[in-house]
């Protein structure tokens, strides 16, 4: 009897803790929503035009990102289901210091932007690739892929800072991605966010991925399903899990674009480090696709080369919608690590390139 009581008690505590966590999250979101509405009202922005503006930005960001997430989910499902474990075992045997630069170089061959690379990195970790290498790949791919390099070249074509911008973006993106990888290190336990049973159900993992046998950080219960079904489970699981955080991120980005006028950033354009930090904040707020952000960066002509480069390096690695995706995917502390490391590398790197180029 006592044994039974013991076996019942922990799940009850977990359920209570999950409920409290849910209430806290609910209040947090309610507070954010109230703050947003108050901010809109205070700035006189709570008008039909503002709502329409929000809707346009929100819809377009989502319609751009959802196909890319789905493409990433397809790749992730293939990695999770059809690539033999021996491939990852062989990769894991490579010396760890070599895995990080190799992962960054692999980014050249993955032509999707940041939304698509998150589910792929998640699946790579689940299959046994060391987290530092998977994260390096995730952060490098949106900057180093050929489409992004080409769009950056087109955006700055005809300007004397063309090569510093293109090469600076590639170089700093490479270094920042590897730096995050090195800081994270090879730790394997608890790197992926452990999802509560209740959350699994809500996210679709319980129904969609549980039982997939993928080795992911969720409670696989060992369904013996055919491989094609595991593929479908993985695909649908990524859609439901990533989708809701993508929606939250797009909403935050659209709200920021609606509430904050870009002109307020212009006043600090000439201040060296502040200009760089300002463009990093702007990149975070705008949450642009890395394949188009160069055109926007180039339009901020009041800012010099350094701040524009900071915008192009920081944005694809950390923005409002990515913050939600990272938080949903990786363990606590990951977000802070990425922000800190990428910010330091971006500021130091852009200052150095500014001095170098003159």
């Amino acid at each position, binding site marked *: 009897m006592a044994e039974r009581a013991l076996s019942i008690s922990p799940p009850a505590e977990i359920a209570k803790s999950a409920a409290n966590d849910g209430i806290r999250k609910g209040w947090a979101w309610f507070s954010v929503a109230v703050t947003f509405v108050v901010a809109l009202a205070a700035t006189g922005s709570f008008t039909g035009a503002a709502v329409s503006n929000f809707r346009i930005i929100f819809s377009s960001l989502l319609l751009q990102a959802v196909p890319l997430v*789905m493409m990433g989910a397809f790749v992730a499902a293939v990695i999770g289901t059809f690539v033999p474990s021996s491939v990852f075992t062989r990769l894991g045997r490579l010396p760890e210091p070599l895995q990080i630069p190799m992962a960054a170089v692999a980014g050249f061959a993955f032509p999707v932007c940041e939304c698509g690379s998150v589910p792929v990195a998640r699946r790579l970790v689940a299959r046994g690739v060391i987290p530092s290498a998977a994260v390096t790949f995730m952060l490098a791919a949106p900057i180093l892929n050929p489409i992004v390099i080409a769009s950056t070249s087109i955006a700055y074509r005809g300007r004397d800072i063309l090569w510093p911008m293109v090469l600076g973006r590639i170089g700093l993106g490479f270094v920042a991605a590897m730096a995050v990888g090195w800081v994270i290190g090879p730790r394997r336990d608890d790197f992926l966010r452990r999802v509560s049973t209740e959350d699994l159900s809500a996210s679709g993992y319980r129904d969609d991925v549980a039982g997939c046998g993928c080795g992911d950080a969720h409670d696989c219960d060992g369904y013996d399903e055919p491989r094609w079904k595991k593929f479908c489970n993985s695909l649908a699981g990524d859609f439901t899990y990533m989708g809701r955080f993508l929606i939250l991120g797009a909403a935050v980005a659209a709200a920021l*674009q609606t509430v904050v006028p*870009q002109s307020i950033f212009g006043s600090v354009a000439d201040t060296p480090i502040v200009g760089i930090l300002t463009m990093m904040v702007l990149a975070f707020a705008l949450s642009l696709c890395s394949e188009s952000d160069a055109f926007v960066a180039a339009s*901020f002509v009041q800012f010099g080369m350094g701040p524009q480069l900071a915008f192009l390096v920081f944005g694809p690695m950390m923005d409002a919608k990515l913050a939600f995706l990272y938080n949903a995917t990786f363990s606590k502390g990951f977000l802070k690590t990425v922000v800190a490391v990428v910010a330091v590398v971006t500021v130091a790197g852009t200052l150095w390139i500014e001095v170098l180029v003159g």
Partner: protein
Amino acid sequence: MRTNWSAPRLATGVALATWAATFWFVIADDRVPYYFSARTTWLAAAGAVTLTAACVARLVSARAPRAEPITWKHVRTLVVLVLPAAAIVSLPPAALGSFAAARRSGAPNGTYLSIDGRGPSDGDVSWLDIFELTYSGRLEHLAARAGETSSFTGFVTRSSGDAAGEFRLNRFMISCCPGDAVHIQLRIVGAPPDRLQTDDWVRVTGRIYPIGEEVVVDATKLERVDRPEHPYLDTR
């Protein structure tokens, strides 16, 4: 092996079907130019195909080895996923207007992307010519064309310093989607005072004059038009 229909899997299939239908609707209803630039139009088709495939895959794999109950939290998550898609389909398409024009970057001078690397085209001066010359800080190249007649379609805004009979004609240039829109503006003079409202779409024909950091159009003809099928300019 005996299997059961899984309610959560079926529900996820419905959510995927909703999103797939949204992409097909955006294509079929010619709304693609409202959300995508010419460079990224392929994403609409990619979204429709991948989501349809994912939906079919989910539905054909919806039988599970054991019963899977659906929870309210799962339902709520799916509702969050489906709501934006439903909003996109049910609300009429809209384009950025005066609100965004007042808040977005519209750098008056300096340098910007080269659309084709040449000066203004040989024909009538177009929005793209003005866009390129304005952002590349080479508006003086337009001086040779001063006094020529051109037509421009855009939406109306007014600035506090505008005299009666003046307004601003605006368009946005997008690279991928309206999220990255950049603003371009002409100053229209010689218009009938107070005939136009903010955000009205008009076609202005008139003589162009580059003056300082802006292009002034002395209107000779002005007509109200419907919002174009392609409300945004893009680099194509």
